[in-house]
């Protein structure tokens, strides 16, 4: 018994001298873990990713991937580039996952999305038409994206039957509107506007829709012409020439202004169409599914 107590005293001493500091410094044990180990980098990278700090998350994932090959992390790494608008790097990294067992379809979809948002529509269409790594699980989504791409550049619009049938019924009426606005834009001809203003000052502006400007042009040119004629009649030659010069200047300006107004009108039509389309699809995430890992 005595021996047991002695031994226990010894064990208590060991406990207080060695184990107690370990308990007290347990926080330090956590601290002592390497903040730059692959595991720590993955944890920290995932935290940054969830906080939407994608640029920093990509750095952490890159360091982690130097030591461990993990498809989910590689997908997240590529997604970081996609999220910060570095679509070329995103596409390149998604390409590397085409052979992945679990994320093959998702990475192919993400690749097509990256190419689309990179505005490389020609590559997108070539890839789609040649069935280059089409994600069969998301074929409808890619097909829709293929047709949407025609709204954003000057390529010839495809046939209406295939075009409209790719979209769900809820969107069809708006898509039809966009299609016909793109195919038959309500442009004004600058030459017609200039010729009309040459015939009757201000008429070109009225043709473009700037009615007040048109009447102002007509009034100013008319008044100046009248003043010029009136002054010449009363032998005030200097003032006659002055008003004639001003009248000619306003007449020329009215013709040039009408042509310019038509061009501005056309630019407005294109701008409004582009922003309407972009706004519509952005609001609906381009009718694409949200992939969560």
């Amino acid at each position, binding site marked *: 018994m005595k021996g047991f107590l002695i031994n226990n005293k010894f064990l208590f*001493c060991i406990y207080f*001298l*060695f184990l107690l*500091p370990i308990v007290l*410094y347990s*926080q*330090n044990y*956590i*601290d*002592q*873990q*390497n*903040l730059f180990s692959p595991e*720590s980098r993955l*944890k*920290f990278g995932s*935290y*940054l990713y969830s906080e939407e*700090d994608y640029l*920093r998350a990509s*750095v952490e994932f890159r360091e982690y991937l130097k030591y461990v090959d993990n498809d989910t992390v590689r997908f997240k790494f590529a997604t970081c580039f996609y999220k910060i608008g570095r679509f070329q790097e995103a596409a390149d990294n998604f390409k590397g996952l085409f052979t992945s067992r679990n994320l093959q379809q998702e990475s192919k979809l993400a690749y097509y999305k990256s190419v689309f948002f990179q505005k490389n529509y020609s590559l997108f269409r070539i890839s789609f038409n040649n069935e280059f790594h089409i994600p069969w699980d998301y074929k409808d989504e890619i097909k829709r994206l293929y047709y949407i791409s025609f709204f954003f550049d000057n390529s010839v619009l495809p046939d209406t039957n295939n075009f409209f049938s790719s979209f769900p019924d809820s969107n069809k009426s708006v898509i039809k509107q966009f299609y016909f606005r793109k195919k038959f834009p309500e442009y004004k001809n600058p030459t017609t506007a200039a010729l009309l203003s040459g015939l009757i000052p201000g008429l070109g502006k009225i043709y473009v829709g700037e009615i007040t400007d048109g009447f102002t042009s007509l009034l100013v040119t008319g008044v100046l012409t009248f*003043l010029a004629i*009136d002054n010449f009649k009363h032998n005030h030659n200097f*003032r006659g020439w002055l008003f004639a010069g001003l009248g000619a200047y306003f007449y020329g300006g009215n013709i040039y202004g009408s042509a310019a107004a038509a061009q501005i009108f056309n630019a407005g039509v294109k701008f409004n169409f582009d922003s309407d389309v972009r706004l519509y699809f952005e609001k609906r995430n381009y009718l694409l599914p949200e992939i969560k890992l």
Partner: protein
Amino acid sequence: MKKKFLIILFYLVAVSNYAQPDNLSIQLDYATNLYNNNQFFDAITEYKRLIFFDLSKKSHFKAYFQIGKCYKAGAKLDDAIKYFALAEMNSNTDDERLKSKIEIVRCNILRKTTTRAHQLLDGLESSAFSKEIRDSIYYWRGWTYMFEDKWQSASDSFAKINPYHELKILCDRVEKDKVSVTFATVISYILPGAGQIYTGNYLSGLLSLGWNIVSAYLTIKSFNADRVFDGFAILTLLWQRFYRGNIQNAEQFALEKNIGIANNTLIYLQNQFKGIKP
């Protein structure tokens, strides 16, 4: 005896190991070193890493505060305010809380959300008991007024710290140098060109006067010669245009001069003023 000696030796070794600076302290130093070397992006990353791994939250105030400073240095003032607010939430002392609040005020001054800066200063003022804190509040309120182009109010605020405060004298000088926009406009109504001459644009003033005299002469001459249409045409197209233009010009010159004076002062403050700046 030998056993006791060994136990003490082991104990000292064990405790001395724990007493080594921990990784979080090293990380804090590393991040601060990056900040000191103006590597703000990397510094933010390392401060964020520190926050993520510091479960005890001991260094959260410092890290959030420093992230705020990094964003501020990169002129990302919205982000800076967010992190200073987080620093305030993680502050442990009144001093740390005040420090964070003042930084938020300074960011609001820089991004010209001066109404918010005033609101924050009002909040601080109601609970400020020491002279040092009150002076700090007057100081930053003075800066807020300067950014609002209210130099007299700024002068009054700096005077509360010290009637001969360097910035008070500067504000008084700006107020003295500025011209009156109303006066420039009114004298242009009475004598065309006078407003421009008052603001120091002598050539423009004389030209304006000349154009008005010529167009008035032509108008009166036409009416005297019973050419009523000519008279009206010259009156509306020429004289009225120059008379109206003269008034607008005088107002514009006065405004531009005042903006120039204020901008020169702010440039001086930015480049040459040695005191604390927002």
